[in-house]
């Protein structure tokens, strides 16, 4: 179906990641500029239960399969490669995080379609999606457009405010079939939490961070004092 913009819903360890809502907000703008419909793509067993906060989308495309229980990029890319030809979306926006990083390139390589890496924005110019991609550690930005559709965009965190894309409404759900093998050369064995005290910087509202400017380890105490006063965690970023 022409004119669909898809957003891959990132789910990790039982919850929809915040970046999903950021990308939905961005996808909403792209879909409107292209006069298309916005579809949230949810993969995994029990995928239908996650639809209630995806109201920014016009519809939810659901792929339920036991092989999709964990976001293993190889397996997700294979499932996406099967459903894209069924509906021929114009664009697929994939959150680019440590959960999803290689899904886009794997998928694009499978389907021989364009992939745009590290996009911090996508706008529509003359009827074409044009991404702003970060290059050279942020020293340069490139405006880049895919030469054919469907195109896959890897969207970095922070493209839009997450509140903008979080709408408590369950859109109509369409189930799509996939045919996945029962065995993969790759098997997910489980997660390990690192020692206590590590800060998940993606989940904190206030964060005190120090870099090389702190100069000496003993000075970190100053930052920790500030963090305690602010009731924020502190992270040593001077790696």
């Amino acid at each position: 179906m022409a004119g669909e913009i898809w957003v891959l819903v990132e789910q990790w360890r039982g919850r929809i990641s915040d970046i999903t809502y950021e990308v939905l907000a961005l996808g909403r703008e792209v879909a409107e500029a292209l006069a298309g419909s916005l579809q949230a793509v949810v993969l995994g067993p029990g995928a239908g239960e996650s639809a209630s906060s995806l109201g920014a989308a016009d519809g939810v495309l659901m792929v339920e399969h036991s092989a999709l229980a964990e976001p293993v990029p190889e397996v997700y890319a294979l499932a996406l490669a099967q459903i894209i030809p069924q509906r021929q979306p114009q664009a697929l926006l994939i959150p680019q995080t440590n959960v999803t990083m290689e899904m886009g390139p794997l998928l694009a390589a499978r389907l021989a379609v364009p992939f745009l890496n590290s996009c911090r924005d996508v706008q529509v110019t003359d009827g074409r999606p044009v991404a702003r991609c970060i290059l050279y550690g942020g020293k340069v930005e490139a405006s880049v457009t895919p030469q054919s559709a469907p195109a896959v965009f890897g969207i970095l965190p922070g493209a839009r405010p997450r509140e903008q894309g979080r709408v408590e409404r369950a859109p109509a759900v369409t189930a799509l079939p996939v045919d996945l093998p029962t065995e993969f050369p790759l098997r997910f064995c489980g997660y390990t939490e690192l020692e206590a005290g590590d800060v998940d910087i993606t989940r904190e509202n206030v964060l005190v961070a120090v870099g090389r400017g702190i100069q000496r380890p003993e000075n970190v105490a100053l930052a920790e004092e500030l963090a305690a006063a602010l009731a924020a965690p502190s992270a040593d970023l001077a790696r």
Partner: protein
Amino acid sequence: MLNILVLVKLVPDTVEELEIAPDGRSLDPASVRLILSERDEHALEQGLLLKERYGGTLTVIALDVPEVDDVLFTALAKGADRAVKITGMEAGPSTWTAAGLAARTLAAGPGLLPADLILTGVQAIDDLDGQAGPILARLLELPYVGITCRVEVDPGARSAVVVREYVGGVTGTFEVSLPVVLGVQSAEKPPRYVPVAKVRAAMKSQRLESVPASGESAVMRVEILQLMKPEATGRAVMLDGAPEEVAAQLCDVLAARGLL
């Protein structure tokens, strides 16, 4: 005995001020000094650690670009057995093109495939249309694990246990059959230092192999319309004065933003 391949690439050193060329769509070559991509340095280190642990040979492979000889001789000095440059291609901005070329050349180059492990950096600062690891894995029809920080191989079982980094200190463990392509985030140890004298010795005693790029160059599927420097926000504010005054100013700034 493992056959380990490490694919590395050179990227612009961002310590230098990068300038955009008059065409507006590429970097001014005069502003670019190429260095080994940071993640590829970790891929090489991870490969060397695996070679030392399980035995085997390590071949480091790179596209033939300026400065590549220094990088390859350094890899030999660190313990790589062979160093191969892929010649006869133009360095371009496309990771897709480069990875495609590497995949075809690996198949054509002498004694490179079959490999047990193909390592490369998980990403590079000039990745515009993909990341080398997943593209290479797809083209060679091998499994891929990215963002790796630990690798253990069971040579008898032809399998590996690979640890992948997520966020907040969480890691995930994958079991994968060999051969496999790995996108290395960080090696288990910091990349080793090799003295210049040892690199010079490698230059005298060892040689680099050249393999011509084979096959058609893959077409880039994205078009760069324009490169630009990010807009300076001008929002940085310097706080001056005695520590007490600076602290008071800082408190005001935080309070004004509702952080206190």
